[in-house]
């Protein structure tokens, strides 16, 4: 049984074109490669 109010809460306003620039700027683009790189740097520093 669908609860109308609960379902309605799941709906968020859609991003408008004017908001695209801010969204891009705030987007976190850190990926696994970046994490791996950081982990390697940290390990190298610890060895030293």
């Amino acid at each position: 049984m669908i609860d109308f109010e609960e379902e309605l809460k799941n709906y968020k306003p859609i991003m408008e074109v004017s908001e695209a620039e801010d969204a891009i700027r705030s987007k976190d683009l850190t990926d696994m490669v970046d994490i791996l790189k950081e982990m390697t740097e940290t390990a190298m520093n610890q060895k030293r």
Partner: protein
Amino acid sequence: MKCYRCGAEIEKGVLCPKCGTDNTPYIMILRESNRLYNEGLSLAQIRDLSGATDRLVRSLRLNKYNTKARNLLGLVYFETGETVMAIDEWVISKNLSPDDNDSDRYLYSIEYGQGMVEQLDRINKKYNLALSYAKEGKLDLAEIQLRRVIGSNPKMIRSRQLLSLLYIQDGNFEGALKELNAAIKIDASNPVTIKYLREVREKVAEKNKDKKSNKKSETLYIQDGNDTVLMPRQSFISVLDSSKGGILNVIIGAVIGLLIAIFLIVPTVRQNENNTNANALVSANQDAKNSETNISTLQKQVDDLNAKLENYEGKGDIKTSYEKLIEAQNFVTAGDMDSAKASLSQVNRDLLEANGQSIFDTLSASVNAAENEKAYSDGVKALNSKDYASAITSLLSVVQTDETYAEYQAMYDLAYAYEKSGDNENAINYYNKVAENNKKKLGRRAKKRSETLASGGTNDDENTSNLTTDNGNADSQNSNASQNSNTSTTQPDTSTQTTDTTAPAATTPDTTQPADTTTQDAGAVAQ
């Protein structure tokens, strides 16, 4: 491949020749990212856009520089109506990989595609407005806005999902089903769509089931010996609703229509026909009456014309009439009255001028006088020979031509002939006329004879040979008249009779026999 730490080119193996870093984990990450991209691509090709989105996002989390994955993710977003998110991915892809990137083409088509960016922006704003209406409880307004959004961007899944949610809330499961089916065609594995569909289908099934259960007939159990017969109980309305009942409905309708026709339409039609026939009959009678009137009028006209025509029959035109008139005059001069009469019969008096008519009249009088003279002479001869029938014929023609002929002597003789032939009625009639018009002895004698006949008596025979002298001698005629008194009731006066029979004819003429007045009459006529 380049080293993930220093960026040095690694041509062989996994170790970096420059920094000595083991790139094995990096290679594994890249491989996993690619694998996820491939999965995402496969799912996108079978319209599992939600699954494709998941794979591609995970691929990018492993390797943000996976340009193909990012571009594909942008496409998937655009296909599901998430246009701004698509633009974001393409912009990021462009920035991360500026060279030889397909995102250039995608961004170019949007940016310069006939105001596409503005249109997309309006659609998104309408969706946000609809969502705000829905959260405020203004479901009708939200529905209206969402229909507009879907009309502008039919691939926007979340708008269809929201609209179907509103329909479900409103109880419009058919509408919700329609929207969800459209959404499932865009993204076959969208979890929200699938969840709503399951709900809606259950609701629709329940509704249909209720209808069926309402229509569903109860079962009758009939025990027939050892057998149990199951029969559906059908109400009358259910029978009518059934397909077989449709035929029954048609039959019932036909019967009702037939009854209406019989009791309403047919009598009216017959009444109208009767009225028409009655009107036609009245009209025909009127026409017949008019025809009779016309016929009688026309017949009268025909008779009048025939009467006029008779005057012209056997008669010639103007020229012929004058010729015959001259001819008749010549015959009269020569004394040939018969020929003159024949010529005059061919003359059309109406066509003659006044002089001609005068001559015609004069000649006719002469011819008639001669004719009368001859007829009278014949009549008297017939009387003398006691041929009363011939006498009547001849004397009647004279009297019809000239009643006063010989001072009513001809009429007197005619009356005498009628009397002797036994026709007392005509005799009395003519005697009375003579008595009225002739005041002399003849008239008195006629009166006496008429009175005798009227009283049922008989008169003596007369000698009419000396009648003209009787008309001029009143005294002698009076004595003679007394001699001819009625003998039916009184004894004859012998003295007078003796005197009458023995008296000399010269002074006291005997009036018992009709006079032979041929020459005398001719002379009288000639005068």
